[in-house]
């Protein structure tokens, strides 16, 4: 009988190193009023969505959704972040891939989820024309800022720019 109890005790799931680290990161997030996390399954801390609603800059008035996917190798590997909408941004392509250095080549285990969130927020304040994923948008930003701002407005309303249909992302 004792043996069975021991066996039962052994079968108990253990907290993994990644889980502990994610708990630490999440509970210490400094979420400003422009960022919101949502856990579709609150038991699963490794998959959640992030909504950024910039309150200044050229993307003000929009609400942008990202999926954040953390694997069990975290923090050795960075979280996988994708934009779930089709948006007009020099550093986000039409499939939702995001060009942010700390999400790939500059990721280090000392960075945390807060760094990622701050980095994403920064992309909406300072779109970067030098590292483009959406080349046309980057080109526009570099050459004709007025037109670029106009395109952002059009895209956020769900408009069409050069044959690409963008998602409506205006805050309801």
């Amino acid at each position: 009988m004792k043996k069975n109890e021991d066996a039962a005790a052994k079968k108990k799931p253990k907290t993994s190193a990644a889980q502990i680290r994610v708990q630490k990161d999440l509970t210490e997030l400094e979420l400003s009023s422009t960022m919101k996390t949502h856990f579709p399954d609150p038991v699963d801390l490794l998959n959640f969505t992030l909504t950024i609603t910039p309150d200044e800059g050229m993307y003000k008035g929009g609400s942008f959704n990202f999926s954040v996917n953390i694997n069990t190798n975290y923090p050795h590997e960075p979280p996988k972040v994708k934009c779930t909408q089709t948006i007009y941004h020099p550093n986000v392509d039409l499939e939702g891939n995001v060009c942010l250095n700390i999400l790939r080549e500059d990721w280090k285990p000392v960075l945390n989820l807060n760094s990622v969130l701050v980095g994403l927020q920064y992309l909406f304040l300072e779109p970067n024309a030098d590292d483009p994923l959406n080349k046309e948008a980057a080109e526009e930003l570099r050459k004709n800022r007025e037109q670029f701002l106009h395109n952002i407005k059009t895209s956020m309303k769900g408009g069409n720019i050069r044959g690409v249909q963008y998602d409506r992302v205006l805050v309801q």
Partner: protein
Amino acid sequence: MATAPTSTTTANGNPSAADWQDRYHHVDQVLDRPGPRTDPSFLAGDEVKAFLRTSCKILVIGAGGLGCEILANLALSGFKDIHVIDMDTIDISNLNRQFLFRQKDVGKPKAIVAAEFIMNRVPGVTVTPYYGKIQDKDDDYYMQFNLIICGLDSVEARRWINATLVNLVDPENPESLKPLIDGGTEGFKGQARVILPTVTSCYECSLDMLNKPTAFPICTIANTPRLPEHCIEWASVLEWPRVHGDKRLDTDDPEHIGWLYKIALARAKEFKIEGVTWSLTQGVVKNIIPAIASTNAIIAAFKIATSSAAYLNNYFMLIGTDGVYSYTFEHEKRDDCPVCGGQALDISISKEWTVDRLIEMLVEKQDIQIKKPSLSTATKQIYFQAPPQLEELTRPNLERKVSDLVENGDHITVTAASLPFNLMVRVTYV
């Protein structure tokens, strides 16, 4: 060859019959008498030989480049009960160094072929293969071995087995401490280390020594590829999800690799980049490192199993790129290691205590000094300070009794901004 059983097959499972006179003459040289560096507890003679040859059960994880060497060496130095796990099948590119495999074996599971080969070649040895993942096996499985040797190729698998073995340790049962010998090679460089879970530094302790995986800026991949690797990454990171949607890329599937190769090659042509080959494609997406055999792991294994000599303490590295250089040092335990660091703090509380009361106690405790702790068990969140959604969701737990949420003797993981890492609390009720 469908004749009567050969002498080797009859010898299998009957070790004494196979141990002819002086079979282990050379091995016996170190087992028959103590030497200057033997452990004081080492008793030379028949007992240790009997242990090694009849009762010692050993597990080899990985039957690849290192695994083949390890298996052969173990079998030849007298281990009779060997188990091997590998989830891979044999690829033609393995044949140059994974000498237990032949061309006819291509496509078959490594573990099974390796086990058959060893049993046919070395009389009296039983090798039990398992074709699958290490994660398929539970604690009871790992509990049966005296020693575990790894010849793995991924960080993830090493972290898993390391954490599993550390968790297996029960302070009241010395048998539950399973020495782990981890070997690794990369080109001309190799290393071997000994991990005595909870006693020496563990794999997680040294995670900060790893090079970060090579990653290229996604914008470079998308717009300005310069290297063949950029084209391959483009195919696997951007094109695969775009074309195949949610279908997962299986890096072991030749068809998938073939598709990536075709796409990467076309891209390379477009940008006039040379050097995209099938094997480079496979190498980039699987993070393959060319391997050269190493026998260090086995030396450590033999010494530990018999305590016939001081064992490797605890990290050996070999750099053979410019001449031969080797160095052994003791990698120290990290006190804040999330896997093996920090003993669990025992606290006993009343069965009536609420979560709120427990948190209050943790905050007030002088020797912990934490502010705003978040608590969870392995399966559920007890109370999270943030983010708002999880705080709201776990807030009702504050009023509940701890004993309703945590079983007697279970661990609670406590994190807080003021704690450099985390704290394990073991709760007992009075």
